[in-house]
């Protein structure tokens, strides 16, 4: 029961996280600074909903009576009323479609694709698609459409007309469309405002797909039953978009069991490769499996005998891994066992080996297919990437704000954020309707990185127009690059009735455009949590087993450590071998990861990582509350009062200077000062800190929380893809209430060599360092110039005539 309670709290926390956190699909955070957040007064919008998901009612569960859409549905897809509460059998014959909870399509044209791994049984069963969605009131049904394709064939193609209540629709999936293994699901939404033609109005358009009522249901009740270990890949997500592995390990407190367990978790995580995965390790079973959750029993035959009704065959004799149906643990229970722990380890190794990647082989792509297609290509050196290969197709567009995104992967030793410039060679065209003053903006990770104004009227074809894109906002791992064309026309200025839905093509983006990545400086740095987030660096490439130190007696700590290592392995794209049998004293010169509630973390480790020593007694005394954060409120007020009066003019010049030159006091600092010790605020529930090891070249990372329970819960939050990707700086804390990640920026760091020495690379490293330390550059330039002046004087003294 306690576990249930924790889960409920956790789920609540998660859902509120989605409500507040800037999720990658919430376009409201990506507005250019110029666009006012509020709709124009007097505009015909019914509901001022700037941030979808924040103000509207929570999506209704599938149990609520569903409703037929107002507009007539296409003949191919006859919507039907969906049945209520799923029974257990129905539950496993159900496959939730969305890889995470809230999928919001905002703006005039949005699409997203991902893959769905199905077992052969699922693929061969007759299936239907259930779809639940709701949209903003101002979306005009007659000119807005929602389409869902599976393997390229349209399954859903309906007008968007569900503004009053969430609708739950059912569509038959044509026989033979699904196949075993990967299936591509693509959803696109074209939305137009009912009355408003302004750019601002496009930010109010949203359609939200409800994860709980959007799933494939298989007619064959046995379709969801697994037959083989590989079927773990088909685990999918639950109604809330999370994936949970319940590891049942009766011998979890044994010394030798921890490392194999972590390895198993890493292997399972790599196999399933879902965006929000977590591991819960316990001695006891926690209930029946559901979609997106699986029970995994691990132990020697004798240990697990009493947990299972019946041991799999051969368990007493040799390493065994099998899928069993168990009355207590439910169908599709994974059992990994053997006569003794050596055999169990062997069985784990048999599962792990096929999913591992040797350290020397470089990744070509980041495996993001289960939540985003196409998979993100890794860019390790100068490279031209065609838009067609990045998943951006040629798009003709008739609206006012076209936004399209692609992703690129950056290695963890990327060190060009201060000087680097990538280039987009844009192939596009705009019609004579487009007025000067329109512009094309490039965003990197939702930060504006370039703006190209359209300055000529009468239409133009842009052929490989070079756009310089600053690399300041790139970070290790995958990065989203968005191209947004903001198009003004005379027709929009007039905005006659019906103008919003006009189909005249104004703009076209061709897939022959290219992203040109230059050679960039590559050197690792420590501390740098964003490298951990991006590719698990530096732990992804060490040549020894990573010392992983946690309190073995606490299942929560062990779950957190396992979840962390699994998440890190997914980021790294390979298994990270761990060594759980070392003491903190033995790792002074090596990499190490510490996971534990604050009272169990040695104070020496805290001191080494720059965390206040008495934090152990104080942190977490007050339970995470919803008290507003002073800093945030202050910022909001400052934002609100900006730009009025002459002081506003001055500060807008200041803004221009800041935007253009990015000069801060840091630019004028010559030597980094010592970082002050950090004290986590009481609102934060998890703290991640990194620092160079006391001696040697290692890098220490600590994950801690006030208590074991908050540790496990916080780690679960951290393991969500969108939270995980916010990790960065030298210390990051997660706010318990909002799931927001706060970073303490790195001020002093040490380099970790990752590439063999090359003059070219060092030149770029120096360029980046000097770009980040502008005053140092000026000083070096002045010193060298003085030296050159003196040398010239000497030279002139010895050459030519003297008198």
């Amino acid at each position, binding site marked *: 029961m306690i576990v249930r309670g924790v889960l409920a709290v956790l789920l609540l926390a998660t859902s509120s996280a989605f409500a507040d956190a800037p999720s990658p699909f919430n376009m409201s955070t990506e507005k250019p600074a110029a666009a006012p957040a509020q709709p124009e007064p007097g505009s015909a919008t019914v509901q001022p909903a700037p941030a979808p998901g924040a103000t509207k009612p929570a999506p209704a569960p599938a149990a609520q009576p569903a409703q037929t859409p107002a507009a007539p549905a296409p003949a191919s897809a006859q919507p039907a009323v969906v049945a209520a509460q799923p029974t257990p059998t129905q539950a496993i014959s159900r496959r939730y479609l969305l890889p995470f909870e809230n999928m919001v399509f905002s703006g005039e044209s949005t699409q997203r694709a991902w893959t769905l791994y199905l077992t052969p049984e699922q693929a061969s069963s007759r299936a239907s698609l259930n779809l639940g969605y709701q949209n903003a009131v101002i979306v005009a049904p007659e000119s807005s459409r929602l389409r869902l394709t599976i393997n390229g064939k349209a399954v859903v193609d309906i007008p968007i007309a569900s503004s009053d209540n969430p609708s739950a629709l059912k569509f038959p999936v044509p026989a033979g469309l699904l196949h075993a293994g990967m299936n591509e699901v693509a959803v696109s939404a074209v939305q137009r405002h009912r009355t408003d033609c302004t750019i601002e109005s496009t930010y109010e358009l949203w359609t939200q797909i409800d994860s709980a009522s959007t799933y494939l249901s298989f007619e064959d009740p046995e379709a969801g039953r697994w037959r083989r270990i590989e079927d773990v890949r088909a685990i999918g997500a639950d109604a809330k978009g999370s994936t949970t592995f319940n590891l049942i390990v009766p011998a979890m407190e044994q010394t030798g069991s921890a490392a194999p367990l972590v390895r198993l978790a890493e292997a399972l995580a790599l196999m399933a490769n879902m965006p929000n995965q977590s591991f819960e390790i316990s001695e006891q079973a926690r209930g029946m499996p559901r979609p997106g959750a699986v029970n995994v029993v691990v132990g020697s035959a004798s240990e697990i005998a009493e947990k299972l009704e019946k041991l799999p065959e051969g368990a007493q004799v040799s390493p065994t891994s099998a899928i069993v149906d168990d009355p207590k643990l439910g169908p599709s229970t994974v059992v990994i066992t053997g006569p003794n722990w050596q055999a169990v380890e062997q069985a784990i190794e048999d599962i792990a080996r096929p999913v591992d990647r040797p350290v020397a082989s470089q990744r070509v792509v980041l495996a993001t297919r289960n939540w985003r297609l196409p998979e993100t290509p890794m860019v390790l050196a100068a490279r031209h990437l065609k838009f067609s290969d990045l998943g951006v197709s040629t798009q003709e567009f008739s609206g006012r704000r076209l936004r399209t995104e692609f992703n690129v992967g950056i290695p963890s030793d990327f060190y060009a954020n201060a000087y680097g410039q990538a280039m987009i060679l844009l192939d596009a065209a705009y019609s004579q309707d487009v007025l000067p003053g329109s512009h094309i903006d490039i965003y990197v990770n939702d930060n504006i990185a370039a703006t190209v104004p359209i300055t000529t009227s009468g239409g133009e074809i842009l052929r490989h127009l070079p756009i310089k894109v600053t690399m300041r906002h790139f970070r290790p791992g995958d990065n989203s690059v968005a191209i947004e064309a903001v198009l003004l026309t005379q027709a929009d200025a007039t905005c006659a009735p019906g103008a919003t839905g006009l189909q005249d093509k104004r703009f076209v983006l061709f897939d022959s455009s290219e992203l040109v990545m230059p050679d960039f400086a590559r050197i690792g740095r420590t501390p740098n949590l964003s490298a951990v987030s991006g590719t698990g660096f530096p732990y992804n490439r060490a040549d020894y087993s990573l010392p992983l130190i946690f309190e073995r007696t606490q299942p929560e700590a062990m779950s957190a450590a396992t979840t962390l290592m699994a998440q890190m392995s997914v980021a790294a794209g390979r298994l990270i071998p761990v060594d759980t049998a070392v003491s903190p004293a033995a790792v002074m010169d090596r990499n190490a990861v510490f996971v534990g509630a604050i009272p169990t973390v040695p104070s020496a480790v805290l001191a080494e990582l720059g965390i206040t020593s008495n934090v152990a007694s104080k942190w977490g005394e007050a339970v995470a509350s919803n008290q507003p954060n002073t800093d945030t409120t202050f910022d909001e007020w400052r934002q609100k009062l900006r730009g009025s009066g002459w002081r506003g003019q001055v500060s807008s010049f200041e803004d221009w200077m800041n935007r253009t030159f990015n000069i801060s006091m840091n630019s004028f600092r010559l030597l980094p000062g010592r970082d002050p010790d950090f004290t986590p605020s009481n609102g934060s529930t998890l703290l991640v800190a990194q620092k160079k090891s006391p001696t040697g070249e290692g890098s220490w990372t600590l994950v801690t929380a006030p208590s074991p329970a908050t540790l496990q819960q916080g780690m679960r939050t951290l393991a969500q893809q969108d939270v995980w990707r916010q990790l960065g700086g030298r210390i990051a804390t997660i706010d318990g209430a909002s799931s927001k990640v706060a970073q303490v920026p790195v001020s002093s760091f040490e380099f970790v060599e990752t590439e063999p020495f090359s003059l070219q690379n060092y030149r770029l490293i120096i360029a980046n360092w000097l770009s980040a330390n502008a005053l140092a550059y000026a*000083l070096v330039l002045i010193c060298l110039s003085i030296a050159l002046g003196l*040398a010239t004087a000497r030279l002139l003294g010895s050459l030519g005539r003297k008198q």
Partner: protein
Amino acid sequence: MRKFLTVILWALGSMAVLGLVTLPISLDTQLIAGLSVLIAMMILKLVRPDGIWRLIALAFGTAIVMRYVYWRTTSTLPPLNQPENFIPGFLLYLAELYSVMMLALSLFVVAQPLPPRPSRANSNDRHPTVDVFIPTYNEEPELLANTMAAAKGMDYPQDRVTIWLLDDGGTVQKRNSEKIADANKAERRHAELRKLAEDLGVRYLTRERNEHAKAGNMNNGLQHSTGELIAVFDADHAPARDFLKETVGYFDEDPRLFLVQTPHFFLNPDPVERNLRTFEKMPSENEMFYGIIQRGLDKWNASFFCGSAAVLRRQALLETNGFSGVSITEDCETAVELHSRGWNSVYVDKPLIAGLQPATFASFIGQRSRWAQGMMQILRFRFPPLKRGLSFPQRLCYMSSTLFWLFPFPRTIFLFAPLFYLFFDLQIFTASGGEFMAYTLAYMIVNLMMQNYLYGAFRWPWVSELYEYVQTVHLLPAVVSVILNPSKPTFKVTAKDESIDKSRLSEISRPFFVIFALLLVGVAMTVYKVYAEPYKADVTLVVGGWNLLNLIMAGCALGVVSERGEKAATRRVKVSRRCDFELNGKWLQATIENVSANGARVQVIDAELEDLAKDARAGIRFKTFAVGAEGILPVTIRNFERTSDGIAVGCLYMPEKAEHHRLVADLIFANSKQWEQFQLSRRGNPGLLRGTAWFLRLAIFQTYRGLVYLLRDWRGTGRIAPVAQTTGQRS
């Protein structure tokens, strides 16, 4: 070995700076670095702008310039697939690269100009024989008389020096011209000059045919003379008494010396100085060349022959069969040839001759066209950068001297580039407002500061740009024509003694007004665009600012081509010399206050007004610099006025005999000190800010003056006294 180490050290230093400036650093770092360097340069300028500090400041500037070039090359060129942008953009880029290359060459040339040498005037124990050549073609006899008299008056043993008047206007060919009027004129000239030369003790020489212009004339002189050294004076360049004393000594110190060149000092302003009224306060245009560049060239043994005011060694000239005549600038060409044969040159930085320069804008342009075309011919036929025998520094020096004359091309491009954007919307320079601030602005300021460091006291801010612009308009076709047809241009003698009796527009002023109007439309276009197309106002403002700069320059040039009416043909030089003034047979004590080539102003003590009458004859008696001699110079009185000490009398020389010419020459030319003092009085560095403010004021006023002249020209009246002549009335 030590030298080698020094070179290695310097090379390492350069490599380090080069490596640093070619790092792809961020915009904000560039901004901070640029500001820091600017501040450092300013501080150095205030503290110590000379010696080693000057070199350090120049190294600062070089670093910023190199950063600009790196950035300009790597990130501002328009994409190749937009030829309408790329082609003009690339031309602009080439023009900028040319400017940077010329800056680099100038840096090399004037890195450390040689300090003035100690005078050799009293060290001559040997007096080699000297032939003095005065080549003439069509100059007036009075002018020649002054020059010959001054040459004759040089302080040198009379038996060791022979003066030759080389007359190309009275050749047999000319005298037998088919046109009877020309033939008669040549015959008269021949006889007159022959008589004048005889009277002054000068040898008159002419020849059969006018072949190879000035070079041929002087080679003819070479054939008829025997002196060890040859001194050359243009017909209007009169030497001071100490000319030979100061120059001949060097030839004994270095047996391989072929040339001692001295500066050209002018008694009258060039048309720019005259029309802008800067002659008295601002250093002349050529002072930068003679005051800094020739000294810089001298450091690298590359100072070259400038056609006059120089002494050459006959032995060296014979090696090349006299003066070279392939190009129309035989002087520089001869120097290149002899330098490449291992002969040396020396430059003496002391004005030892005084001469005249073109007075009208048209003849000024004619002279510059000849120089530009001649230098292009040298570039084409001799190509100094690859000429065998020249040392590496000499190659660079000659490159600097010849390539300089390509300036009309970049000037034209800079002039029209902004209009491409303003009128046709072409994006020929891809940069944002911030980049422009951090790179281009820093580069421009540093460039101006470096110019100020290099030439500060000799060239005020923006004046180089003005001179280049006013020449560009007419030099561009001249340079293009010589590039297309290198052997076509022929030597044309520059007229220098014209005078402008009334204010008028120059006959070649029209293009300047057309360009001004075009740029003005550009300004209007800027204003229109800023309001009509606010989304690209930043770029429009930057380009419009550039166009405005061009407009200011073009406006100032309107003043240059508006010729002021002048009463005095030549400027007066201040002197202070005791004399006696003869008035109606009485001798009164007097002081000569200033002199010009045509007359003098005398302060007569104890004179009575009623004794004086306009056009009355009078005489001035004074001691000449030649020891013990004294003479009376007849004059007529032009005007007079009462002053606190007596009466100031303006009078006109009335030379009748050779003796009188000698006296005039002695008055004006004998004392070279006075010229030096005059030059020094104009030298002064106003600094970048004050200089810019001054130029701006000047430009605005001159624009106004030019437009008034234009208006008057349209109305067809030219008789009214020009505007703003109030300050400039001289007798």
